[in-house]
């Protein structure tokens, strides 16, 4: 397989395969998790303002009072990374074109210089988070192979994407093919690792908010 054939494969069959595994994986995992159900709470509820599943889905996006100071790196680099990732994935013009070709949907993007800056900042935030995971005793203690592995499969699409736009390190065709391949790996891995929090985070916050909201506690 030469460079062009490789690029053609990752853009065609490779992408189809990865997207299929991703979609089926997400569906399977959601059913696997949420079909376990839960018992009905028979205790008399207490109602309080702001205490519900939906409130918590949104409220948990903001650090509780005092926590930002206690874990500044996790919060600041965490926010930067998540917001940066969303901007780069959804508002970079070539990405929008790809999404349009697959779904027909399209929206205006951001200037590519700005996206370039966002990508650099996002990559930096990920490096900071990695260093923090290595340095901070609690994070290091909790970390397993999965934590390092998922960091890598999230990092590679960002890095290869940025390198290919900048035409660095490898010829454009090769770097672009590697970029697409790395995204495909990410898509395949996501449903079956902690990266699946991208989906379950809403369910988890909702359950926590609902269980405690039943007691009139706005968590």
């Amino acid at each position, binding site marked *: 397989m030469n460079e062009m054939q490789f690029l053609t494969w990752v853009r065609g069959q490779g992408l189809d395969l990865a997207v299929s595994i991703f979609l089926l994986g997400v569906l399977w995992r959601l059913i696997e998790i*949420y079909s376990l159900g839960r018992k009905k709470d028979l205790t008399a509820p*207490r109602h309080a303002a702001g205490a519900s599943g939906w409130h918590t889905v949104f409220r948990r996006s903001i650090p*509780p009072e005092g926590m930002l100071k206690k874990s500044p790196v996790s919060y600041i680099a965490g926010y930067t990374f998540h917001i940066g990732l969303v901007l780069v994935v959804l508002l970079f013009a070539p990405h929008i074109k790809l999404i349009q070709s697959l779904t027909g949907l399209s929206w205006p993007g951001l200037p590519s210089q700005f996206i370039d800056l966002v990508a650099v900042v996002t990559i930096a935030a990920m490096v900071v988070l990695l260093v923090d995971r290595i340095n901070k005793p609690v994070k290091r203690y909790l970390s397993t192979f999965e934590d390092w592995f998922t960091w890598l499969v999230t990092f590679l699409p960002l890095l290869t994407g940025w390198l290919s736009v900048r035409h660095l390190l490898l010829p454009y065709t090769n770097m672009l093919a590697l970029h697409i391949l790395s995204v495909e790996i990410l898509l395949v891995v996501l449903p*079956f690792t*902690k990266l699946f929090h991208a989906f379950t985070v809403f369910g988890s916050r909702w359950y926590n908010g609902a269980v405690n909201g039943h007691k009139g506690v706005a968590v």
Partner: protein
Amino acid sequence: MSASLEKGVRVLKEVIDAPIASYFNSCVHCGICAEACLFYTETGDPKYTPIHKLEPMRRLYEQEYTLLGRLKKMVGLSKPVTDAELGEWQELVYNSCTLCGRCSAVCPVGNDIVYMVRKFREGMSASGNAPVGIKGAANRTVTIGSPMGVKLPAVKAQMKHVEEDYGIPIPMDQEGAEYMVMLSSMEIINFPEYLGAIAKIMQQAGKTWTLCSTAFEATNAGMQIGNSDLARLIVSRIVEGAEKLKVKTVISPECGHAYTALRWEGANLIGRPFTFKVQHIIEVLGEFQELGLLKTKGMETDRLTFHDPCQLARRGGVIQPQRNLMNMVAKNFVEMPDAGYMNWCCGGGGGASAIEEGEELRLEAFKKKKSQLDAVKPDRLVTACANCRIVLEEGLEHYQMNIPVIGLTELIAEHIPEKGA
């Protein structure tokens, strides 16, 4: 696999539900829950990170309820949960967790970690890995009637003393009374003022109330140990008593876990809604205050602060009434940092205070309470949980801090004028 481990695993498989599955899948190992746990903040030992306390249950979940986990198990790639491991986890699931719920309040992905610890204890208990101290308390509650071995004659003796001291009759087994008052053994043995306070408060409010001879003990070590069968048995006594006496409301005493057991687990334990209301005494006092049925005289002038019992405030939703009551009788009421919803645990909740071998760790964790107290330097400390009170007194004594601890109900009652005076 031993028979007890098999039982434990079966129970764990039963208690794992969609919320738990969602929580395990959401954890990104950010470690923020550690910062909310006093056993971590005061020791700096990462093993006390709340989510880590659930590791055996997480693996079991993965092996039993996920496709990938089942595949890994089939080809022998997963580490099975063992007796030895659960034994090792006892310290993490009981000694160093008071079910205070601060971790659940800060987790960025929204995991209700304490919800999982409570369920994990079911499996720990079924596999014979609960600490001897709480096991004993639970067994005494079932066989004798109270965790401290208090029997009806002791309650009757105290009723007599209170009747003599206060000149107010203490009703027992009075059918049709509005309120059925529960006690904790701690109050029967160590804080008899509580019963006297109730008598004065009810008399002033003009409410009918009664004790119940078959259900006077409110605490539920069955829930703390994580044994729903025992917890159900203990709650059933109270339900039977309340229904027999046809009371409208059962009042949980100044005890955090008794409140959670009765108010937020009770109906689920017996499998049907209650026919009566359950209120913590502080909620009842708050209601009396709002209705003008609680009239106090005079104010405390020394510097007072309030320790929120976790199960009353963060886990129970009662946060404002205690503050209104404090302001009713205290001129100089100051709040500790993090007071209210995010107050730090005394270190002895969730049955932890009954674990002898956990004492050293408990005193270490008490440094958090010490720092909260050092920040406001109160003359006295008020709370609304007899267990907090005992743990606070022990901690204060250990750190040679001269701060008396009092219950809010008795503080209020001290300000109720004598009848006819």
